[in-house]
């Protein structure tokens, strides 16, 4: 049974002297600590952070980079905004710890353009860290030097994909790269680079502060620690919640005061939509992984309208380089339009679901691989509602 009422981020007492502790260890020891904690990437993909850092540490290069992915563009996600504005220390010092762990000299915060109002706040904080010798040359009197620069995005969702982000940092269109090679070997300007989510760095801070063992007592076997969830939609108390991995959707809905829910979109536009019959499923990498977005829809909502909103999002936000994502999302959106008009046969709907499955495995990056998720899950889980339009269309309002 997960511990629900405990908090890590939102408890000031939980914050300790993580940077001091980390710098007393060797980089290898820091990486080992992160590894032991079982920390996995909080952006949604869940790659083990310790492994990523280990690969970057062992890569041989004269320069290495740390990138904090603050391009929080997934619809329904805003936990990174809260972390950056209210728990700045955790994120930025988490980055320094990451930098030390892989022996990087420079870090970037890739801050989405929509959060430009946080730029000054973050810069002021970086200045303060430099004054306090927690950033810059010889951090805390050690031999380790590291600095952080903030780079703004310019309104492109795909730049949240780590290789598209690196392309963007290099001054290119935000088009995802072929992998391998992976950024831990060939990242920014060809140098080993770790790209981690805002929350991941904050977690790394907490792991160093409280220890891997303490951290890993939360969560499930394969999903350690607490998770920040951004809740919005038809709920009484929208906002950011800190919950342990393994929490069921039902428990979460109770916590946030969902009002007559019909469906829950987990993981934002690229996540899946589940009906109330599945609320006993839980949020974890074992069951439903998420970067932290939960949107609740009540019984009044048209799921077709929801789906159209998501598909329009992907048609516009795909980078447009690979065929499945560029054209596939358009075809799915056209399918939604046919459904609205009551002109989509069941046979064609199945064709589109099959197309969605191809997109999931044949697209070049995570965007195209996950963009069919809402289509497939909504048309599967809410088929009766979706297919109820007559030829003229009646509830696609």
């Amino acid at each position, binding site marked *: 049974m997960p511990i629900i009422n405990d908090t890590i981020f939102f408890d000031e007492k939980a914050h300790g002297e993580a940077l001091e502790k980390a710098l007393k260890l060797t980089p290898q020891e820091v990486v080992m600590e992160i590894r032991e904690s079982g920390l996995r990437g909080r952006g949604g993909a869940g790659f083990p952070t310790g492994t990523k850092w280990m690969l970057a540490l062992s890569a041989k290069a004269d320069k290495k980079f740390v990138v904090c992915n603050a391009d929080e563009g997934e619809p329904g996600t805003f936990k990174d905004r809260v972390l950056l504005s209210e728990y700045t220390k955790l994120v930025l010092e988490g980055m320094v710890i990451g930098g030390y762990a892989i022996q990087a000299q420079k870090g970037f915060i890739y801050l989405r353009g929509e959060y430009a109002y946080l730029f000054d706040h973050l810069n002021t904080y970086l200045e303060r860290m430099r004054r306090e010798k927690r950033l810059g040359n010889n951090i805390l009197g050690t031999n380790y030097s590291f600095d952080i620069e903030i780079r703004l995005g310019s309104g492109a969702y795909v730049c949240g994909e780590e290789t598209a982000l690196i392309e963007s940092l290099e001054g290119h269109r935000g088009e995802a*790269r*072929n992998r391998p090679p992976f950024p831990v070997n060939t990242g920014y300007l*060809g140098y080993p680079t770790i790209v981690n989510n805002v929350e991941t760095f904050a977690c790394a801070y907490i792991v160093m502060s409280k220890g891997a063992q303490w951290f890993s007592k939360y969560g499930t076997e394969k999903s350690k620690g607490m998770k920040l969830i951004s809740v919005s939609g038809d709920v009484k108390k929208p906002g950011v919640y800190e919950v342990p991995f393994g929490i069921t959707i039902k428990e979460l809905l109770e916590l946030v005061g969902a009002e007559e829910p019909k469906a829950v979109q987990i993981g934002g536009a690229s996540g899946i939509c589940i009906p109330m019959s599945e609320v006993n499923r839980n949020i974890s990498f074992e069951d439903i992984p998420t970067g932290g977005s939960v949107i609740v829809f009540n019984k009044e909502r048209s799921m077709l309208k929801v789906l159209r909103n998501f598909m329009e999002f992907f048609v516009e936000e795909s*980078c447009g380089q690979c065929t499945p994502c560029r054209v596939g999302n358009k075809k799915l959106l056209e399918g939604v339009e046919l459904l609205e008009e009551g002109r989509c046969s069941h046979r064609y709907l199945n064709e589109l679901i099959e*197309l969605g499955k*191809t997109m999931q495995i044949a697209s070049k990056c995570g965007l195209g691989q996950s963009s069919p998720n809402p289509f497939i899950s909504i048309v599967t889980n809410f088929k009766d509602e979706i297919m109820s339009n007559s030829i003229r269309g009646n509830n696609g309002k």
Partner: protein
Amino acid sequence: MESKISQERAPVAQKPHKIDTTVTGDIGGLVDIEINGRPYQVPFGITILEACRRNNIHIPTLCYHEDLCIAGVCRVCVVEIEGMRTLQASCAYPITGKIKIWTTSEKVRKARRHILDLLLSEHYGECYSCVRNNNCELQTLAKEYGVDYYRFGHVDQKRYEVDRSSYAIVRDMDKCVLCKRCVRTCIDLQEVGVLEATRRGYNTLISTFMDKPMIDVICINCGQCINRCPTGALRAKDPSDEIWKAIDDPKKHVVIQTAPSIRVAIGEEFGLPPGNSMTGQMATALRMIGFDRVFDTNFAADLTIMEEGTELLLRLKRKLVDGDENVKLPQFTSCSPGWIKFIEHYYPEYLDYLSTCKSPQQMFGAVIKTFYAQEMGIDPANIVTVAVMPCTAKKFECNRPEMNSSGFKDIDYGLTTRELAQMIKEAGIYLPELPPSHFDEPFGDASGAGLIFGATGGVMEAALRTVYEIVTGREVPFKNLEITPCRGIDGVREASVVLENVKEEWKFLEGVELKFMIAHGTANAKKVMEALIRGELNNYHFVEIMACPGGCIGGGGQPIPTSPEIRKKRIEAIYKEDAELPIRKSHENPHIKYIYEKFLVDGPCGHISHKLLHTHYTKRGKYIV
């Protein structure tokens, strides 16, 4: 030559993983893998696509091109790797471990079919009204995958206006499949930078700066994008209708000249493997089509050598003897119109380094409308000059306003190899089966020196054969006249010959080491120019630059497809034919001697030739208005 300031345009992660030897890398050696259940050993780091090709396992591709960096965007070449959730683009995936690959599993077949369906749903146009009918990679794939209906619909209206503004290149974005080959060609391979992906998502469009028409942006008309376009989205501007009209008009005397590279490539349009010479057959075919005279551009190439070689010697004399500081050396060749436009845009301050010689095509046009018209007693106004070129930039060149020194347009129409093949087919002729014939008098068959103009390094080699002999009175000291340092396919090559025991009138050249450099592809031209600007070419004398990779045999008007292997074959055919010719030096061509006796009577670089055979250049600059 390593250029210090050259930039790699391709993003790091998209550089090609090319591994040529079987033992590479420090991890070294071979990897055991399984493809479709059978074991193979492949070099560490090789891509899945390359591994499959070496083992005769077919994987369809679309955005992949051997000349270009990896894109991995079309996803047609996806394969399944055991244990991985997603399919991988085989063109981009390097083999670094013991993996099991499935190239035709159910998932793979379904995905490829879906991808084709998606591409076809967006591809406007009917195959039978397309210049690439029967030579279209999308069409081939559709056939290969048995596409018999449009699963996800099909666009039924044109969405983009066809851009016909350029003299050379027509863009029809309705046929574009966004493979980005043209982008990689234009930006990475040629470093010209006309085309790039713009916008994003479903609205992504390959476009020019500010979506301007091609005529308004800095395009050098090299046509390399056309050669690599898998569909009919990019094509050359075809003048064959006008040419047919001229042929049909009894009042017109229609004269055609054929460039050196046509003969070694045109067979490919008739299904022959690359590297077959069709010189005599082509001459026959052209007469059958109805051209009144069939001339060989090689004659004009010989003429170019006389003029350009003399110009070089004169520059050397003015520099070394007269101490004229205004003389620019090294002298750069000027036969490649793509290169000319490149330097006019990007290095307008350095135009004085260019030879003032017109290209062979234009020289020939001027000679035909003057000397030939005189000899034949034909009013030049009734002569229509057609030039078959491996080149799309020649279409622009013949329309340059300054190219009218005869009082008429030197060349009326520039035709590409592909378009000529089309005309031959239209005339119902199967080229390979024709009996060979000779070119027409008064220009006749030319020298091997003129012929090798078609290959990178050829102009240099031809010039050296003549210049060395003029200065020393002896043949160049290379076996069989094969100046091997000029040959090869490295992007930038250099070499030198020492002039010893020179003739009396060239005493000032005694002991001079004549240094020369050869580059092909404008990306390499850029390297050379940057070196020139840095002052590294101060003691060089002659530089040959061709805009297209491989020289003219790799021109933008040549048969599609192109690849390093195909270009190599064409080059070999050129050198083979040169070796078999009785006359292999420009100055020994009897027709050349004749024209200097009869017409260009004040000799190479004299007044007449200056008026007819030389030109000037325009400082264009790189701002797009």
